[in-house]
């Protein structure tokens, strides 16, 4: 992990005093419009998500409850520039256990999408994305693998329609996200 990550994680956790100027009261409304994130306002901070989160047990910084509160408070810049939002493993335990049906994992996905819009994208997602655009597959399947399939009696892998994927990438705005983005 990079040093910047450590710094950011600390920042998210240790700055106890929040300045009013840091808060964007419109942020929660912005989030609420995103499919899957409609129920952000329903979080009443019971902490079931954090208590049941497998990642939170081993991380000093990843706390879904805290992220929900920060989102409600509108601490947009702190959240979107933080690497902490990238630690959710999407196991959906919080989604199943939340008494308010907040849909925490979808809200974290929405936060990630917004972070990417702002230019923060972990290198691994850049790689996965460009591989899907180039080959249809999320990983580059080496030539050796293709040959081995034949030896193993497996049928050839279905090919991707790269032109179609490129078109879909353009119309969904995905392509644009990959242009001149800095790596978080």
């Amino acid at each position, binding site marked *: *992990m990079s040093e910047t990550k450590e710094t950011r994680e600390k920042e998210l956790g240790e700055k106890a005093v929040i300045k009013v100027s840091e808060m964007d009261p419109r942020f929660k409304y912005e989030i609420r419009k*995103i*499919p*899957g994130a409609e129920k952000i306002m329903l979080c009443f901070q019971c902490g079931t998500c954090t208590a049941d989160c*497998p*990642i939170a047990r*081993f*991380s000093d910084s990843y706390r879904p409850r805290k992220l929900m509160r920060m989102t409600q408070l509108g601490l947009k810049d702190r959240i979107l520039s933080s*690497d902490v939002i*990238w*630690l*959710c*493993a*999407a*196991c*959906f*335990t919080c*989604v*199943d256990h939340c008494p308010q049906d907040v849909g925490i*994992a979808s809200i974290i*996905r*929405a936060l*990630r*999408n917004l972070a*990417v819009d702002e230019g923060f*994208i*972990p290198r*691994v*997602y850049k790689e*996965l*994305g460009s591989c*899907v655009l180039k080959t*249809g*597959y*999320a*990983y580059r*399947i080496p030539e050796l*693998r293709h040959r*081995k*399939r034949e030896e*193993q009696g*497996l*049928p050839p*892998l*279905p*090919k*991707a*329609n790269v032109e*179609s*994927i490129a*078109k*879909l*990438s353009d*119309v*969904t*705005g*995905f392509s644009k*996200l990959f242009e001149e983005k800095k790596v978080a």
Partner: protein
Amino acid sequence: MAELKYMLFLGCVIPYRISSYEISARKVAEKLGIELVEMPEFNCCGLPLDPVSHDMMLTLAARNLCLAEQQKLNIMTLCTGCAGTMRKVNMTLKEDKKLKEKVNGYLKETGLEFKGTIKVRHLIQMLAEDVGLERIKATVQKPLNPLKVAEHNGCHVLRPTKYIGFDDPENPTILKNLIELTGAKCLDYMDETECCGAPIIGVNDVIPLQLAREKLNHIMAVGAQALVTVCPFCHMMYDLHQSRIERAFNEKFGIPVLHYTQLLGLAMGFSPDELGFKELRVNATKLLDQLGS
């Protein structure tokens, strides 16, 4: 009984590095009289790109659904991630007219339209619900009697309950029943439904190893001789990374991690070679010797 014919969605992880799952799954499917049709074209289910762009994920998943709709076939996947994603998208687009219009607007560019006419099945759902335990049991020729194993379902085959609606995510029993029909005993252990951690290994390689180590410790504590998985990503975490976990924590596990289809294949009488056992990182020879396979 409905015809057992599916479009096989391989996903990306299996062709990339977990061929043993595909090899054994094809063998087992053939034995059960399941016909698997190859995808005419392929693209990733969309799951890995959801964090970057939700719209792109929806569109990629929907595109695969459209390709299966054209051939009037249900999709069967071996990967829980692909199954969970495509099930969720299939259901959401069927229910949310506005979202369906939006996604169809994108798909129109490539001459496709999502209609919502097919189903998405994960391997174990197909086995339990479409094939049926009795029919599978009838194919067992070499019961794996003395063997004691533990299961790991993988999150996306169970959760979120709202979209998946399969088994009880708090106390899953279907995979256990599928395991026990082979004659092997499936042991209970602590935190059975806990995530393997693999999805974040690209951004943090410490936490997933800690999670996987904990699971290996829990299954060792109850005396399981192997871990049985139904997801290539989970498998990678416990098999491929097991030696790395051993080094990082200075512990010794040596627990073979088998795909369910390998376990069932052995019980059907296939040889370990036919089921891709050579591809496993953690050596399963001791276990196979004990079974006389």
